[in-house]
């Protein structure tokens, strides 16, 4: 049986120009891709080298700095040990010097109304010290008004006595240590 070969080309000859063009494009693509590869890897290599160098330098500096920090901390601890007691004492004196009795008397004058009288007052110069006092009021509503004003100052009412003439309350408050 005879084999039939079909030749679909218009002509038997190869189109040289098209072939050359295709070959050139493929070659250029090959060159381009290799160039990209070489460029990327070279750049990366250079960066890695620089960064490793820098990282090593930083690591050395960090180690040195850590030593300095430890040394300085020791020196600070030694100074603290030597001076802390005196510093604390000086600070406590300054704190007590700034404690103002006048400020507290002014405060009481401001909050106590006309119908009230402070019979007794004790003030101690301590940061946690409370002012204790005995208040006489002519009317109950005045006393309650005073309680309301003193509530923000950790008011503690020890007792209250009511008589025909007046109302008497023993109470204590705590005012923040501040100087006006």
């Amino acid at each position, binding site marked *: 049986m005879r084999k039939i070969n079909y030749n679909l080309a218009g002509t038997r000859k190869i189109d040289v120009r098209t072939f050359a063009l295709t*070959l050139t494009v*493929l*070659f250029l*693509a*090959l060159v381009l*891709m*290799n160039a*990209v*590869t070489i460029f*990327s*890897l070279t*750049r*990366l290599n250079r*960066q*890695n080298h620089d*960064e490793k160098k820098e*990282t090593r330098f*930083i*690591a050395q*500096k*960090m180690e040195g*700095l*850590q030593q*300095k*920090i430890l040394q*300085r*901390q020791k*020196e*600070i601890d030694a*100074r*603290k040990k030597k*001076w802390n*007691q*005196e*510093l604390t*004492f*000086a600070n406590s*004196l300054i704190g*007590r*010097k700034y*404690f*103002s*009795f*006048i400020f507290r*008397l002014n405060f009481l004058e401001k909050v106590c109304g006309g119908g009230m*009288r*402070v*019979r*007794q*007052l*004790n*003030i*101690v*110069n301590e940061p946690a010290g409370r002012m204790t006092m005995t208040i006489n009021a002519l009317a109950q509503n005045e006393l309650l008004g005073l309680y309301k004003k003193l509530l923000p100052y950790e008011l503690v009412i020890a007792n209250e006595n009511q008589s025909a003439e007046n109302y008497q309350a023993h109470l204590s408050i705590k005012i923040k240590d501040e100087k006006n």
Partner: protein
Amino acid sequence: MALLVLLGVSAAGCLFSLVYVSCQDVSRQNRLTVFQDFERQEKEWQVLEKEYRDWQKLPLTLQKFRQDHILSMDEFAAFRRDLDARLAANGLPPPRIDFSFGKSLNSIKKVSAKFSLEGSYRSLKKFIFDMEAQSKMYFFSQMALSASGNTVKGAFTMEVYLGE
């Protein structure tokens, strides 16, 4: 055919290089962490240095505090004269004043002065104001006021700090 194979290998190499560069970017983040740690350590060092300088200055500051505020024996004598003068100026009868000398702490001796006064509220308050206004290291440590008719009775305790 060989050209096509080469092309395929080149494309794969190119892709691999791009992926590898991306991966290296991730590892670069780790190096950035090292830099951040270093910056943090430098800040810690600066804070520590500031604290150290403060501690270095402290002895001088404490010495100045002593000179400016703690009383010498001469100043203590002046304080006692001043106390009498202010009591007289506010019309308060000269009281009996009990002084007690405490132990020394950090070369500073505490002296307590206790006295009782009786007078108008205004004069007592003026006296307290006058004594509080002084810069030297003496202050009221305790006071108890009680109303008595038109006058106020007050029991006062003052603390005075003397340097040695």
